[in-house]
């Protein structure tokens, strides 16, 4: 007699977890959040709480003295902000600062990074060290040295250029000096980021392209730069969001926002409102506006970086 082969049947699995009481499992689900807790607590105390307080202060009039009362004024601080001429011109100068820094944070690092790939071994390390060194100099110390270099009478800059410019006391040159010194300072960081981005692109693509008949220039334009674009968008984001902060210690040491406000950018302006004019409400209102404005810009750039990012496999 013929009988069909019984289908394969696995023995039933005894659920080991089902035997255990459900409590440990619930604790298990909590574990990741417990790990996050210290970080979240720090964020709450040092970021979210001040942020909320800034919002609150922007609706009051207060001179920062703990003894004097904070008077609610509604939207008056915002109205004042938009009628003051400082605000618009600080925005304009911030834009100039950002544009002026882009060569230092994107153009030069890309050129340096592409050239550095041709340098190998010990020389490459020395080269990277040289480029990176300025970042290790404390901004205020760097500013002191630059102040000395930029001295109108005996400074090395004027001697080398053969000029007699009073760098830090004339509006145009002061802004230029702030841009160049900030750029000098962050260049190493940007080069490092670009080098990391380039290191993440395997040589296979350039080799395949070379065999496909592409010239060096074509490989750079068609393969390397497009694959580097997420890194470049990241640097753009950093520059836009942080340019004013990067330049702050230099401005505070070298020009105090002058001459005649020529180097006052948004970040310095709100600090000036708060801690020079002791107008906490106005400073906070400026802070809120910049927070929202930069938030929108950052959102746009993050969206852009998602769009250009290439998921290499």
């Amino acid at each position: 007699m013929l009988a069909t082969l019984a289908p394969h049947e696995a023995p039933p699995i005894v659920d080991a977890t089902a035997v255990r009481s459900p409590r440990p499992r619930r604790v298990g689900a909590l574990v990741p959040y417990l790990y996050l807790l210290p970080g979240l607590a720090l964020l709450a105390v040092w970021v979210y709480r001040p942020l909320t307080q800034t919002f609150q202060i922007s609706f009051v009039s207060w001179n920062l003295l703990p003894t004097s009362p904070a008077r609610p004024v509604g939207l008056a601080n915002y109205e004042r902000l938009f009628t003051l001429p400082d605000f618009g011109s600080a925005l304009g100068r911030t834009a100039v600062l950002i544009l002026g820094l882009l060569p230092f944070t994107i153009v030069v690092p890309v050129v340096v990074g592409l050239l550095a790939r041709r340098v190998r071994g010990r020389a490459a390390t020395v080269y990277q060290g040289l480029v990176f060194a300025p970042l290790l100099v404390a901004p205020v110390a760097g500013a002191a040295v630059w102040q000395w270099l930029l001295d109108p009478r005996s400074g090395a800059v004027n001697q080398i250029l053969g000029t007699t410019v009073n760098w830090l006391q004339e509006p145009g040159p002061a802004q230029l000096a702030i841009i160049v010194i900030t750029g000098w300072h962050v260049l190493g960081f940007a080069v490092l980021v670009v080098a990391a981005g380039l290191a993440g692109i395997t040589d296979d693509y350039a080799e395949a392209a070379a065999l496909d008949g592409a010239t060096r220039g074509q490989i750079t334009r068609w393969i390397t730069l497009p694959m580097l674009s997420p890194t470049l968008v990241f640097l753009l984001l950093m520059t836009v969001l942080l340019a004013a902060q990067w330049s702050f210690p230099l401005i505070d040491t070298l020009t105090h926002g002058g001459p005649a406000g020529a180097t006052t950018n948004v970040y310095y302006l709100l600090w000036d409102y708060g801690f020079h004019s002791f107008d906490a409400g106005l400073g906070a209102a400026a802070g809120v506006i910049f927070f929202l404005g930069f938030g929108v810009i950052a959102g746009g750039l993050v969206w852009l970086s998602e769009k250009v990012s290439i998921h290499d496999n």
Partner: protein
Amino acid sequence: MSRIQIEGLTRRFGQVTAVDHVGIDIPDGDFLVLLGPSGCGKSTLLRMIAGLTPPSDGRILLDGRDITHIPPRDRDLAMVFQSYALYPHLTVARNIGFPLRARRRPRTEIDSRVETVTRVLGLGELLTRRPRELSGGQRQRVALARALVRDPGAFLLDEPLSNLDATLRTATRAELTELHRRLGSTFVHVTHDQVEAMTMATRIAVLNRGRLEQVGTPSEVYDAPATTFVAGFIGSPAMGLLSARLDLVDGGLYARAEGVDLPVGPGDPEDGARQVLVGVRAEHLALVAPSTAPLRGVVRLVENLGSEEVAHCLVGEARLTVRGPRPLGLAAGDSVGLTTDPEHVHLFDPGSGRRLVRTPTPVTAVQS
């Protein structure tokens, strides 16, 4: 259409000699397979042909033209990388068209070439996708299409099938062979898979530690391995090798060792008392009664291959494998007697590992 000649090609990486004085003449239209174990220098050799790794020494000629120092883009060669190296930010169509775009061909020509190649390889629906949206097999085909699109002098393929599953690999193997037949171009194909080598190659070059062990057709390499390395590397299960001493009895040579008294054919007096390595392939061994057998040993393990069985036997110190239809009727621990035809016995020099061949004059090592 290209003939590739390689002369004394060497590449050193510090202390390591990855490729050591390799010389091969690859005639136009050949399908040469570079075969060898991992790390033997196959990729390095291929990359030197492509121009991606500069040689330390030696020359490469393409159709008689010395290309040793010519940059890759001027070599008229196309390569398929093991990683495929598809440009991740470009669509399939742009990837395939890239070699033509780099050569500044007109848009219409690029489009029509891409269209032709994708039709041949059945990639029509994938043209607007990016590499990351493709399966491994599809990526492999796109990489192949990119190589095919501009009709290069020769194709260099670095283990293009190693990322595919077994079924797809078999199918792609047949397709590549068919493609080679239709195009008639020169192919240099790197692999460590002997089945790939045996089935696709018109000629196989076996590499070991950067040295060329043998170049020949698949049957030459299988039937007359030039060295013990080739004998052990090609064929599954590997050819068993046992060391023995030759004895001349009545004009006939016998290989003798513990458990071994095997006739290996006629011989000359000079051959007597010579130490040799004796090799016999698993399919050429037959089972006989243990008492009078020329090879006597013990079964250590029997493997079931489905249609056949393979018995691993210990003869003296050496391992021999027997292969035959199921069931062989053997079990681990059994005493076993084996025999073979003298014509299926391979003899090697124990010192150099080179094959010993019969010559009209006394037996000598092969020179190559």
